[in-house]
């Protein structure tokens, strides 16, 4: 191979790799820059270059202020609660429904699948959704955001396809051994489809963690808002007073020295942190799942 590599081909290769590395830099630099700013000495932040990816000086002031700030702390707890409880419900009910719908002889299977597909095709919009939550009395209740998208139609369809791949002999063997529908699901189907389940769990997890719209609409109480909404109020809507308010300035010695830009950067990084924590798992399960599907196809 190497012997017939011409000089021209090596230049081509360099250009291709450089273009991809440029893409990596454009993707990663803005995130590293925010991390750098949040860890820099507050006095140095105003003079820092937008290109900087390393902290100028070192200080944990921003992070200390963030994790002791009542709004941020509340938001963090709310996000964790909504994400964990929402994801558990999602996975349990999606798996149960997918298992039943993956049985080819289930009477009414086709009708039920169409029943699900209709909801993908036609969406009546934001306002009717809002009125459902309102009529159920779920406004200002965590249930409104936990139950929304309890079963995602797309993920359901993916899971049905995975469950259908479980060899029928194994299911028959389990049934002959006297296993009921739940036992077959638990002991045979779920262990065999673990990568698919993991992928869907991670997707639901990311969905709940990143959701800002439903909490913003359905939860009016500031104390119930998840981190994304707190971040949105601060960075997008520009409500600086809520974050670096008088109370905070008095409470934290030297807080007035802290640059708003550094605080925003820290807040963004705090919101990204859990995603970064599960990202290696996402890469492992999802890319693997996609690849094996492709190889088979």
């Amino acid at each position, binding site marked *: 191979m190497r012997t017939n590599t011409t000089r021209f081909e090596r230049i081509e290769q360099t250009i291709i790799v450089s273009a991809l590395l440029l893409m990596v830099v454009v993707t990663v630099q803005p995130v590293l820059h925010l991390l750098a700013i949040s860890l820099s000495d507050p006095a140095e932040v105003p003079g820092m270059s937008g290109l900087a990816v390393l902290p100028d000086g070192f200080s944990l002031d921003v992070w200390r202020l963030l994790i002791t700030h009542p709004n941020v702390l509340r938001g963090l707890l709310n996000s964790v609660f909504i994400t964990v409880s929402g994801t558990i419900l999602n996975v349990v009910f999606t798996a149960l429904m997918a298992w039943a719908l993956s049985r080819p002889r289930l009477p009414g299977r086709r009708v039920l699948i169409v029943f*699900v597909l209709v909801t993908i095709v036609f969406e009546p919009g934001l306002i009717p959704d809002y009125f459902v939550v309102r009529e159920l009395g779920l406004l200002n209740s965590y249930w409104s955001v936990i139950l929304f998208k309890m079963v995602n139609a797309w993920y359901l369809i993916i899971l049905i396809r995975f469950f259908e791949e479980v060899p029928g002999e194994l299911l028959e063997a389990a049934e002959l051994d006297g296993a009921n529908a739940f036992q077959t699901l638990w002991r045979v189907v779920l262990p065999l489809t673990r990568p698919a389940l993991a992928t869907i769990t991670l997707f639901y997890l990311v969905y709940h963690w990143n959701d800002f719209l439903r909490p913003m609409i359905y939860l009016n109480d500031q104390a119930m808002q998840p981190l994304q909404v707190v971040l949105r109020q601060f960075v997008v809507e520009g409500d600086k007073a809520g974050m670096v308010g008088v109370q905070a300035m008095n409470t934290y010695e030297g807080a007035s020295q802290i640059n708003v830009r550094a605080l925003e950067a820290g807040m963004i990084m705090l919101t*990204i942190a859990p995603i970064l924590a599960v990202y290696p798992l996402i890469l492992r399960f999802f890319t693997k799942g996609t690849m094996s599907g492709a190889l088979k196809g």
Partner: protein
Amino acid sequence: MSLDEKSVAAVASRFGNVPKDAPGAEFDERAVRRMQRGVKVRTWLPYYLMLAPGVLYFLVFHYYPIYLAKLAFEDFRIFGDNLWVGLKHFGVLFGSPVFYQVLANTLIISGMKILFVFPVPIVVALFINEVRNSNLRRFIQSAIYLPHFLSWVVIAGIFIAALSPSSGVVNEITGWFGLAPKGFMTDSGSIRWVVVFSEMWRSAGWDSLLYFAAIMAIDPQLYDAAEMDGANRWHKIWHVTLPGIAPTIATLFILNVGLFMNAGFDQIINLSNDAIRDQIDIIDTYVYRIGLQSGQFSLATAAGLFKGVIGMALIVAAHTISKRLTGKGVW
């Protein structure tokens, strides 16, 4: 259906060739039919119990809203029953210049995204396939998939920081070439490009995964044969790789057209501000604003319903065309 479900749908379509009558279906159907009704109920009852919560969820959170969409034909009353007014709100909607503005914005932004964002992941996947060092390749992939998993609130925060006229990296770089700092986020000439570029930043990497998976599925013998015929890198891309991934490109393109009315609600609600709202206000953000912020529930429902019906026509057409063209539907 949000935009990032596009990629999930595309992945779903990859698994579409699982045999329909997978093992387990191979019982004698006549024997089944001969079984007594009681046995049948006893066999399937546990499955229906497992289906029940999910079905109830779809009824309450997806079908009941369809019924409540009748609000578009009523005047909303806080006390007592709503008043049926027929097409009144649609008349108001179609008579309002703002509606045509948001409709135009929706079409322009979706069109720009298809034109400028759609081709990028194809090129990225082709390039990644040319990287021989597998560690380098994995490093590049790990980095460029990340933004897909960040919320639009976070991405808006990142872009606001990077595009800031006083401290942003972009203005710092344009400054080297003597250009005056510009507030891209508040400039009506540039905000649509911010929308396009931030979409690219978020999804070009991740979407390339779908094409890359399709490239991996191409028979390596085809490359060997091409090499024997003296094909160089570009010949192989043009005559082997591109034809190999053409069905995936077609499916995703059709799906994008099917989702044309979804110009990116989560994205635009976070990138928008008073200075440039008229440039990027789309139907979804319009519904949110007049409905949930101004309380014009009926008018907002009418606008949402208009979008829902057009969207339904597009996605059904997309599915039908995709199925006929590539044998794989959208779902």
